[in-house]
């Protein structure tokens, strides 16, 4: 079984700062990390490899320093790491990115056929959740988004059964391989790399592909040229006027505190009370 996991290097959103004047993200000095959602995808892929054997390839499009993120994935157990990096990719939106990554997956497939592609459910810097579906569409893969559990993989029958989060419940889906899975967060816990794995990762040469090596056929579809998205304005959210208040619990019963809380909520947001009453009468 050959699994490709697509990852992205993102600025650590826990440490991000917004420029007080321009409202743009100050990336300088903010550490770059593997998009946290992608780690759930990687771990799930590694678990399948542990179970069925085979190979996990991590794929990333980004600047040369994204190599560090790929090496980290190798320390967790990925067998191969490919960085698609070229100035021609600069300024790509999700459409151009999914085109470039799909081409690269196709190239990887020439070396060894790909059974599954994994991505995180979205990135923490873009938050669009569009690249995964984009790749699936371009490669004609079965698309399984927001997957919370892989129930069964039948390699001989070329099928997979998964659970996915849906509004108001869980869907169980069965489909054919090859497929693309975007993995939901908190569905597994990333393993802790061993010391030999850390040393192996530090020694690993990450393969770097330019646009030709990545099999890009149409240069009009990559980078800024291939990106119809336009950012028209960047602004910070207006701070809320409402202040938090503390309810004293010590001297009153839980029931009193709850009633107090509900009363305050209704006073502040009459719409909640209204909706609740409507629902009750309906």
């Amino acid at each position, binding site marked *: 079984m050959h699994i490709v996991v697509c990852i992205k290097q993102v600025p650590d959103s826990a440490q991000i700062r917004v420029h007080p004047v321009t409202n743009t993200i100050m990336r300088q000095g903010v550490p770059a990390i593997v998009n946290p959602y992608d780690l759930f995808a990687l771990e799930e892929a590694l678990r399948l490899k542990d179970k069925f054997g085979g190979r996990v390839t991590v794929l990333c499009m980004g600047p040369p320093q994204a190599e560090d993120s790929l090496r980290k994935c190798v320390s967790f157990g990925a067998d191969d790491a490919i960085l698609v990096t070229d100035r021609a990719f600069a300024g790509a939106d999700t459409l151009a990115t999914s085109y470039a990554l799909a081409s690269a997956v196709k190239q990887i497939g020439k070396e060894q056929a790909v059974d599954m592609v994994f991505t995180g459910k979205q990135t923490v810097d873009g938050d669009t959740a569009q690249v995964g579906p984009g790749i699936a569409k371009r490669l004609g893969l079965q698309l399984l988004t927001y997957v919370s559990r892989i129930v069964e993989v039948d390699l001989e029958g070329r099928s997979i059964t998964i659970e996915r989060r849906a509004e108001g419940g869980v869907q169980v889906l069965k489909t054919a391989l090859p497929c693309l899975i975007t993995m939901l967060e908190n569905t597994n816990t990333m393993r802790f790399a061993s010391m*030999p794995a850390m040393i192996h990762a*530090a020694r690993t040469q990450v393969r770097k592909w330019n646009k030709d090596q990545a099999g890009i056929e149409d240069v009009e579809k990559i980078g800024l040229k291939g990106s119809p998205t336009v950012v028209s304005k960047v602004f910070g959210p207006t701070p809320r006027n409402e202040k938090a208040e503390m309810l004293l619990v010590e001297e009153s019963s839980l029931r009193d505190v709850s009633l107090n809380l509900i009363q305050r909520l209704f006073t502040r947001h009459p719409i909640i009370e209204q909706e609740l009453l409507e629902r009750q009468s309906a």
Partner: protein
Amino acid sequence: MKEKFDVIVVGAGPAGNAAAYVAAKGGLSVLQIERGEYPGSKNVQGAILYSDALEKIIPDFRDEAPLERHIIEQRQWVLNDDSFIGAHFRSDAFNKGPANRYTIIRAQFDKWFASKVREAGALQICETTVQHLIKDGEQVVGVQCDREHGDVYADVVILADGVNSVLARKAGFHGEIEAQNVALAVKEILFMPEEVIQERFNIGENEGVVIEMLGTITDGLMGTGFLYTNKESLTIGVGCMLSDFKASEKRTSPYVMLEKMKQHPSIAPLIAGGEMKEYCAHLIPEGGYRAVPKVAGNGWMIVGDSGGFVNAMHREGSNLAMTTGRMAAELVIEAKAAGRQMTEATLKEYTRRLKDSFVMKDLHKYRNMPGIFHHNKQFFTEYPDLLTGAARHMLTVDGVDKKTKEKQVMSSFRKTRTLPGLFGDAFKVWRSVR
């Protein structure tokens, strides 16, 4: 598979990076292990970079290193609660030729330095803590990390794990750190547009100012404050001996001290409008000469803060760290080439070379300094008031003749410190810096 290297360096601060870089450049196989998420993520310093020590390791560092501003002006301030009296030195000569001092932001600088270490050929592993040294009899032969199959071996282990060197303590190379030998410093980085900084401090692009402060800002504790200009931010901080914080009757906390210092009428206008970007605290080994432990033994050497190599008097530390790191690595390269075993007999040459270098010479020169200030708190309480009071008195024109004014100033000094006290203080300071 048993992994074995020529050298294992524990830590990726200035000392560890210097050691790993020099060793790797010298053709040795090097494994560097860092506890933080990335090199620099846990490292804290003022921070001033002294070029000389780094030049000896990476001569053309200025081409690539993330430097903030080169220092063209130094201000020494003695403050009481409402004034300061100071000496400033500014020279355009600092603008000519390669600069000697720069402000830096360590998270960025260390990341760069560590990338040079990797380029030089060392293997670097982060997010990994060395828990123990592995010994074969008396000889240190490797380290045990907090990961599965965490034992890694080397001919020599260089400890660059910082002020709180837990490893050296666990291995019994030195005892518990004593509170009177470390300072606790806190600092904030305040964001400020480049142009505002340049206007406020009367400097041009890339030019920087350093303000070193002493006085009642430390609430009677032994310590100093500082303010540095970075490219787009100011660094402001204050530090005092940990033992003083412990003994403080008012239970002064470091952050309260810093908050008060930021409100000082001489400082507040300089930092007004600055938006806090980060705050941090760190211990600084300031025990000086007498607190330096044994730094070389069978299969191990200690470099940087872990060895207490800080010249508190001149606020030098990272340069001593880089120098000790370089010297340790150089010795390993030589010993390896000569086919010598990394025993104490071989490695004690490191201690000898340190003695001949500015590192130990400077520490020796100020060996009595910590003691003097410890037992003479008047330098942080009475003198600032006396000095600023004298200046204010002499500069107030009020019909009193100058001779009388001089007498009044002298008598204020005599009344507070007594004549023998004044001479005694002068003698103590002179003896400790001579």
